[in-house]
């Protein structure tokens, strides 16, 4: 019996069309737009100005607070301006616009393809390097990683859990990375283990990626204290708390952090970025992005420079299919429709999904029939149908009684609702109402 989390969950069609496509390097665009806010927390502070020449890997914005991180130039060229454009988040953000010239790397970066296994840095140095390299959680939440590796006083990390689940349908970026960079990822795991001083790491991989499970099964034998945990296919297993429950059987308390049960969770993309930062001194300026969709002619996994307009990726994947109605940044479940295809790729962009008109339309909302499907689908154990009603009426006390703040916004409730009720939208509204009340 394979491990999984016990409560709720759904299994939407996987549609992992791009799973067999090797990672391709996307050509460098003429202009990149690098947002200064690509992470959770305080936006970074630009440290370049118009006319400055930058190389690949030059820091262009510095951490402006505790929950903040560095941002590096992804191209060599000249800073054109600092502008405000609509980003993939749907909101206008400050971006550093850089006009590209020929690729020149910062001297400190090791650009050779050699595999480096020996770890020379200690825990303190690793954390500093992670901050200097601007590494954030690359599963989509974009939480600055150096904070995660700083285990709070009085807490003890006992297990490092690596998230290779990729439970979102369509997306294959992590899957391809695991297949192509398995040894590097294992070294990355060793580095993080040193940073947080734990002895054992678990790699959670869903059973729909048998090739990755098999590959890691052989690669981890070269290393000490890493084991592969095959997991049953279920959405949202990639959720931090769900993954901890599935792998270790421990439940993170409501309102608590994974460290409360001694766990630290990292995405495989993040682990690979840590490997590159520590072993190759390469800051986070590129990432893997899946471009896919039902009617896309060529499904692709690209290695993309941060700041590349999403339009470039779509063009490189055979162009936009005619009946595309929505472009989603991320996966179909938790991703977000973007208003303009010129929006740039950020550190958290795991995929670009082109949705045809037939699938993108919302159906008409009907009355709730109290079937309870949303309740059984909820992986946290909430009652979405009633939370929606409370949010509609703005009842703060009831929202808190029904633990609205514990929702991880996975969207399973909206997915299963036979009456097509926008449950998640209203749960988000409920959270908004509670936060507003808290501020008062």
């Amino acid at each position, binding site marked *: 019996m394979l491990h999984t989390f016990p409560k709720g969950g759904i299994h939407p069609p996987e549609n992992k069309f791009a799973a067999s496509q090797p990672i391709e390097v996307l050509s460098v665009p003429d202009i990149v737009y690098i947002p200064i806010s690509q992470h959770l927390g305080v936006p970074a502070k630009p440290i370049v100005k118009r006319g400055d020449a930058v190389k690949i890997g030059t820091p262009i914005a510095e951490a402006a607070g505790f929950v903040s991180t560095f941002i590096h130039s992804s191209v060599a060229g000249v800073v054109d301006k600092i502008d*405000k454009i*609509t980003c993939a988040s*749907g*909101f*206008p953000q400050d971006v550093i616009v850089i006009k590209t010239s020929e690729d020149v790397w910062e001297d400190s970066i090791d650009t050779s393809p050699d595999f480096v296994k020996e770890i020379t840095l200690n825990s303190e140095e690793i954390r500093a390097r992670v901050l200097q390299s601007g590494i954030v959680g690359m599963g989509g939440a974009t939480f600055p990683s150096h904070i995660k590796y700083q285990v709070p006083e009085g807490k003890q990390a006992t297990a490092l859990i690596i998230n290779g689940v990729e439970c979102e349908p369509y997306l294959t970026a992590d899957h391809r990375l695991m297949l192509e960079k398995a040894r590097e990822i294992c070294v990355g795991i060793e580095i993080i283990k040193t940073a947080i001083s734990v002895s054992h790491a678990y790699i959670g991989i869903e059973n729909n990626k048998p090739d990755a499970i098999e590959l890691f099964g052989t690669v981890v034998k070269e290393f000490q204290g890493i084991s592969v945990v095959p997991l049953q296919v279920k959405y949202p297993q990639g959720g931090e708390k769900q993954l901890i429950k599935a792998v270790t059987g421990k439940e993170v308390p409501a309102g608590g952090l994974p460290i409360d049960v001694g766990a630290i969770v990292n995405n495989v993309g993040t682990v690979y970025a840590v490997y590159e930062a520590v072993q190759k001194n390469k800051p986070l300026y590129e990432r893997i992005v899946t471009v896919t969709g039902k009617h896309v002619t060529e499904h692709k996994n690209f290695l993309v420079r941060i700041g590349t307009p999403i339009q470039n990726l779509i063009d490189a994947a055979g162009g936009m299919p005619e009946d595309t109605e929505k472009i989603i940044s991320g996966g179909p479940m938790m991703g*977000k429709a973007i*208003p*303009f295809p010129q929006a740039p790729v950020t550190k958290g962009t795991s995929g670009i999904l082109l949705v045809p008109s037939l699938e993108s*339309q*919302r159906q008409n*909302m009907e009355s709730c029939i109290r079937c309870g499907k949303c309740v059984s689908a909820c992986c946290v154990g909430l009652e979405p149908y009633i939370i929606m009603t409370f949010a509609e009426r703005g009842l703060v006390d009831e929202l808190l009684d029904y633990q609205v703040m514990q929702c991880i916004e996975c969207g399973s409730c909206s997915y299963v609702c036979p009456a097509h009720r*926008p449950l998640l*939208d*209203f749960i*988000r*509204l409920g959270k*908004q109402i509670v936060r507003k009340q808290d501020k008062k």
Partner: protein
Amino acid sequence: MNETILIPVIVLSTIGVLAAVVLYFVAQKFKVFEDHRIDEVEAMLPGANCGGCGYPGCRKFAQVFVESDNAESLFCPVGGNEMMSQIAEHLGKTVSAQAKKVAVIRCNGDCENTRKLTSYDGPQNCRIAVATFEGENGCSFGCVGYGDCVSVCEFDAIIIDEKTGLPVVTTDKCTACGKCVEICPRDIIELRKTNKKDLKIYVACMNKDRGARAKKNCDVACIACTKCVQVCPHDAIVITDNLAYIDDEKCKLCRKCVVVCPTTSIIETNFPPRKVQEPVSAVKE
């Protein structure tokens, strides 16, 4: 035969009398004192329970009014000054008169002045839409027009104009309770002082972007050109964050700013037509 009916009557009457005596003493012992004036004040209040006074419902307001030593800070915007002075007289307290206010929609980004760049198919709810993206017309400060203010108004004072897609406040019905101000996620509704004949001058824009970007999204956006500040003889206009604001306390309704505004983002309502029309038309072109 008489005893058959007599005994139950006597027993029941005794129980009744005993119960009455016990209940009398219990009632005396656990008597809850409530000021009768609270009921009287509550009867004088509008009974809308809108929360515009800052208290949950009219009864709580009445209670606070009766119990407070200083009633100066209390005000029911729905009842207005007249009702407040009546209640104060009844209780022998003093209240301070406050200027009547009315809700004003500070956005004029209708379908003609802005262009629809994207489309939104989520729930028709302003707060959800605003938390999702910048808005269909690309302005992240203006009205999105899904009518949260309409649904929250207890007095039917706000409707969405079908032509423009923007909310319109009926001044006569508006009681300045402030519910719409609170619910609007973009803070475009403001309570402003009313003037004679419902004359109003205000900047119908909330766009804090720089001029060029603001103008790109909306033809009638404030671009912070400072022309209105220069022309205002009463120092009533200030510009903060690339946005002009007219102080309703200082404004003397001279209408000089309306004429000079190059984007017509300053709006005048209910004024008689101007004698000389040329400056307005010249600006509009």
